[in-house]
């Protein structure tokens, strides 16, 4: 008699567990599901309030995607984003790798403090600075140019990058470099020959984060750039496609989805390292 009851209880518990999890998942992913549906829906189907919006009442279509790529600057924005992303990654790596190593190995206790100080600038960044930065960019003669983004973006990718890489360098045993130095390498030689090769995963993390931060950036781009052809994708789509004259939800949703997915997937794989950095080592990631 008790056995079926206990079984029922287990099933009810499982149902409650996955039910709650399901509600959370739906809440998180609903806008993206709605993007996916909208992208492939025909306009008469989309703009008919009598239709069930969650299913395809007419055959799916590729018209919106064709429009997105042929009639809007979407592709240009994607390329702009890629270009700025690559350049900012290069600048960030050049600045971050030696700085993080120096803070961990060559500056002692002061280095740790300075590292935390640099990390804290990551908190201040864009929202307080975008107003004076508009003037700085104008004075450099870079307004409305992609170069303004290339110059300014490292100001927030470098602090976080240094912090993340410091954690990584700390986990490398000192003996490794010391052995190399006893073998006649200089400190710099040991760093380049021993430390850098085994730091590839850490450096790759910096590359991914810098790139995703560039793709996500909004306020500086909105402030510095005024002509549509120089936008990055995360400003171009909301500024030009939403508040422009053409309201084409199908194309817009397609653009959002296409630009979001690669970044989201990349970020997802490296998120745990990012969290390890954010929590200041209070949690070993």
């Amino acid at each position: 008699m008790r056995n079926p009851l206990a079984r029922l209880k287990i099933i009810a518990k499982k149902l409650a567990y996955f039910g709650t999890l399901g509600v959370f998942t739906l809440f998180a992913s609903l806008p993206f599901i709605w993007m996916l549906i909208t992208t492939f829906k025909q306009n008469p189907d989309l703009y008919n309030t009598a239709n069930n919006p969650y299913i395809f009442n007419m055959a799916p279509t590729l018209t919106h995607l064709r429009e997105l790529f042929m009639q809007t600057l979407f592709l240009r924005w994607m390329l702009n984003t890629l270009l700025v992303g690559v350049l900012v990654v290069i600048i960030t790596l050049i600045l971050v790798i030696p700085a993080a190593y120096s803070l961990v190995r060559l500056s002692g206790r002061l280095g740790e403090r300075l590292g935390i100080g640099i990390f804290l600038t990551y908190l201040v960044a864009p929202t307080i600075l975008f107003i004076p930065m508009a003037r700085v960019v104008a004075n450099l003669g870079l307004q409305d140019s992609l170069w303004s983004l290339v110059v300014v973006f490292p100001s927030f990718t470098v602090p976080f990058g240094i912090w993340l890489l410091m954690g990584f360098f700390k986990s490398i045993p000192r003996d490794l470099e010391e052995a190399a130095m006893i073998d006649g390498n200089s400190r710099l030689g040991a760093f380049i020959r021993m430390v850098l090769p085994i730091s590839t995963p850490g450096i790759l993390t910096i590359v991914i984060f810098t790139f995703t931060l560039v793709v996500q950036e909004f306020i500086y781009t909105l402030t510095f750039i005024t002509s549509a052809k120089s936008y990055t994708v995360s400003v171009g789509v909301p500024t030009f496609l939403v508040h422009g004259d053409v309201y084409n939800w199908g194309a817009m949703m397609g653009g959002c989805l296409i630009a979001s997915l690669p970044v989201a997937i990349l970020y997802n794989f490296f998120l745990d390292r990012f969290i390890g950095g954010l929590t200041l080592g209070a949690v070993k990631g």
Partner: protein
Amino acid sequence: MTTGNAPPRPVGAEKVGRISLLLDNEKLLGILMIAPAVLYVLALVGYPLVLAFMYSLSDITIGSVSYNFVGLEKFKEIISDSGFKIALKNTLLFTFVSQAIVIVLAKILALLLVKNFKGKFFLRALILMPYVAPISLGVIGWLWMLDSIYSPINWFLQHSGLFGKDFRPMWLGKPFLAMFSIITVHVWRMLPLATVIILAGLTSIPQDIQDAAQVDGAGYFRNLFLITIPMMLPIMMVAILFGIVYTASDIIIILVLTRGGPYDSTQVLVSKAFYTGIDASDLAGGAAYALFLFPLLLAVAIFMLRIARRAEVT
């Protein structure tokens, strides 16, 4: 100290000379390696920060060529503006209400996700989407979901039988509903990050402490309130602090969803700063609006430092 342990045998004078030379070099090398990054950050964070303060004490506009010090005039002007009160109130309201909801939901979600089950990686990826996808693009998805005519949410509510067929709330067109929508989107955006941070904290609680509590006969809730939550406190603080920074300084959600409307009822400090400083070319006013966030960010920074120090000790 970094050049290896001194060998036990007495060292020759020549060798001491070489080591000290090496040490000097290392110091120099250390400075040379860090200097470019520090200079970059000083030039593009430190310098604009000083400029922000200077601007807020002047009457500078985008076109002006000279600097005109006017003291606290701009701040006085802003504070007496009726829009300022709304912006300040909204900033605090959006930030603290959404973070209170986030921390409760994140705790629940983290406790659900700490268990292992088939397909967990895929589910986690879906739950993380709002945080890892570019925020402005995700919010456009919301803009379309909250559309006044074609909203799939309204369709669902109309067909759920709970409301009439003419139930058509203007999610972004009425002040109260617009604020509700903005807070919901803030929660949607920050929940994944808080969840993952808390999840990292949960998995780092040593199992032997939990085992000991179980041996002592502590039940689930005693375990939760006497062990899990106190041990999680620092990590939950980190989640909350980042949530506060991200939410208080966010401008994307407002700019994409409501542009501060209807009737400026959803303006926040940062959106005010943008519309004043960039759209209306009043750099001084914009800088002053943005600087009202500075005390909040400073407080968060101090808290973070304290947490970092604690982490350093243990």
